[in-house]
């Protein structure tokens, strides 16, 4: 079950198929009133500000970035738990951007979500059986056979099917996350949005849940949008990665390229800031980048390139012109066409490849 084998075949099959999910220029502004002195002033938080991506069946897209970059809002917009201000979300050729609540039911079956905190996302007063039966009843699936389906699901995620009458409080964090995964899988979705699914778990449990997700993805041919701040987890799990900063995608491309030869300064800084366990083995990265300061407020993001206030390459042009998402390679086709062909995209006026940020681990002898 090696990833290297499945990834290319998956990708090859996909180019012919039409995309599962198309997100175009997605925006979400949150208006609010603020007291300034004695006056009330209207302001907006630009949580997500024009992002686009495409996802095909079986593909996994990772959204990474720091808190406040809009990655969770994006997840909520795709699942339509929240309505976009502008832009469009097209799922299997159907525009779901502004569907009404009752029209969303069919989408809810195909798009499911796994939440971060397994303590808050399960109702403490419901048994596991009832938590897992509810989605089946709502969608009228496995009528009369619900109990058997629930036991199947529990087995699928590695829990004891006899525990069907227990309450969430009787399970550990890792087990609860498995219940959350079973609930998402109950209605046989095509796309799963996972919002930080392992960040509340301990390292040893995290690995168990990651393995489970990878197994399910391969067995059930699921597409994933995987939101996480942990770069290691994203590298392990995803095919494509989109790096976000202040509501925008600053770099997008194949996982290997993003991690080994990032082009955007923010991606480079992010990779460089993550502490590396290999330092213990005496293998340190050749170069370190340390950013100064914090992420600016999304209420009033910097003009031009949003990263310029923390960027060491920033020049006058960065404040005036917002760099578009583009390839470093000569190419005249549209942004969408480039993305579809798997080209690497970045949004920087002075992009250059850096390969010195991650420690080079000598290849382990085959064994």
């Amino acid at each position: 079950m090696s990833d290297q084998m499945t990834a290319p075949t998956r990708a090859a099959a996909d180019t012919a198929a039409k995309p599962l999910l198309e997100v175009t220029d997605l925006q979400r502004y949150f208006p609010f009133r603020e007291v300034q002195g004695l006056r009330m002033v209207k302001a907006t938080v630009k949580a997500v500000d024009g992002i686009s991506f495409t996802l095909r069946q079986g593909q996994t897209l990772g959204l990474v970035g720091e808190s406040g970059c809009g990655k969770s809002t994006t997840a909520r917009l795709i699942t339509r738990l929240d309505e976009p201000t502008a832009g469009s979300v097209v799922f299997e050729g159907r525009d779901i951007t502004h569907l009404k609540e009752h029209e969303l039911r069919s989408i809810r079956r195909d798009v499911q979500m796994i939440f971060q905190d397994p303590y808050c996302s399960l109702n403490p007063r419901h048994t596991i059986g009832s938590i897992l039966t509810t989605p089946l009843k709502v969608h009228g699936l496995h009528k009369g056979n619900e109990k058997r389906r629930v036991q199947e699901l529990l087995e699928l995620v590695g829990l004891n099917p006899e525990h069907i009458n227990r309450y969430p409080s009787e399970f550990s964090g890792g087990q609860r996350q498995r219940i959350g995964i079973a609930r998402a899988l109950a209605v046989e979705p095509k796309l799963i949005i996972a919002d930080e699914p392992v960040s509340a778990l301990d390292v040893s449990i995290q690995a168990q849940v990651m393995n489970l997700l990878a197994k399910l993805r391969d067995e059930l041919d699921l597409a994933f949008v995987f939101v996480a701040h942990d770069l290691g987890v994203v590298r392990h799990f995803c095919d494509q990665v989109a790096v976000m900063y202040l509501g925008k995608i600053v770099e997008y491309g194949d996982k290997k390229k993003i991690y080994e030869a990032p082009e955007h300064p923010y991606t480079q800084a992010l990779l460089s800031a993550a502490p590396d366990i290999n330092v213990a083995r005496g293998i340190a990265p050749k170069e370190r980048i340390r950013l100064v300061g914090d992420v600016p407020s999304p209420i009033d993001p910097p003009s031009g390139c949003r990263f310029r206030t923390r960027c060491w390459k920033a020049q006058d042009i960065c404040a005036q012109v917002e760099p578009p998402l583009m390839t470093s390679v000569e190419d005249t086709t549209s942004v969408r066409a480039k993305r579809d062909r798997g080209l690497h995209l970045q949004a920087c006026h002075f992009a250059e490849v850096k390969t010195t940020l991650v420690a080079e681990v000598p290849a382990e002898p085959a064994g």
Partner: protein
Amino acid sequence: MTATANGIATQSAEATSVGDVVLDVDDLSVVFPTEEGLVKAVSNLSYQARLGRTLAIVGESGSGKSVSSMAVLGLHNPKRTQITGSIKLDGIELVGAPQSTFQKIRSTKAAMVFQDPQSALHPFHKVGKQIAEAYLAHNKVSRSVAEKRAIEMLDLVGIPNPKRRALQYPHEFSGGMRQRAMIALGLVNDPKLLIADEPTTALDVTVQAQILDLVNDLQKEFGSAVILITHDLAVVAETADDIVVMYAGRGVEKGDAKEVLAQPSMPYTYGLLQSLPSHSEDLAELKAIQGSPPSLLNLPPGCSFHPRCEFKDQVPGDACWTQLPEWRPTPGLANRQLRCHLPDPVRTLQEDEGVR
């Protein structure tokens, strides 16, 4: 401030130079009696923190890493906690000591930086005032001197425009800035020991890097001892000198931080490292430790880790089930101690790594 007044015994000489032991924790146990029984949060834990060095206490949630450090500062409710063993901070015995002793040593000898600066700073008071108050509590100076000191401290931890910032409230600070203010608050009385409890867990990676650099720089400047409590092994690799790995309330392996992470000798440490999705390597499947940590109400007999250990059948007899392993030097590794029954742990783990 010297703490010799009020009959506090100074049993050994105070630590003054780099490498001297500031904190000596010996056979510490912390037990919480509850309705369901005794929760053994920490059992027989021993470690030492030395001036100028960073000691990392590593473990998963519920392993007792925070509970043991809170005992150092007397932050447990004495009515609901049974603490036994010995904690010697700069020669002062703290187990069984009265609250007045703790009030004297807090901030002057040992200070703590908490995980969540949002809840650790008082939301109603200005940041500068909070720091000045900590200084006033232990020094006979005027308020204006203390306030000046607070501004100095804010400047020291890299807060731009400290004069203006000192007059702001915690909610006006960003997460990283708040954690810097926490550190300033911790260091205002120049303690010999700084306990940082998951100081960067609530922060973003780029800010985490800044804060870790700051703690390292300040330690070099002040030469104090730092105890870093964390679950993040990569952070340990980059910052710590020494390490204690904890599992279910017990220390299971200790030694030089980099050496332990490069070549673990206890199956739990090894399992933790194996389960990391290291972002420098691509693996098809992560190697997880099976099962989950035991309940502290009902610890398994023998070695607490044995229900999850995949090497237990390599131990002759049933020692893993029946006998609690004692601390012993790891065979074949200098400067390393572990609690494990494996006859030759280093070779066993190396062979396992080769097989995969």
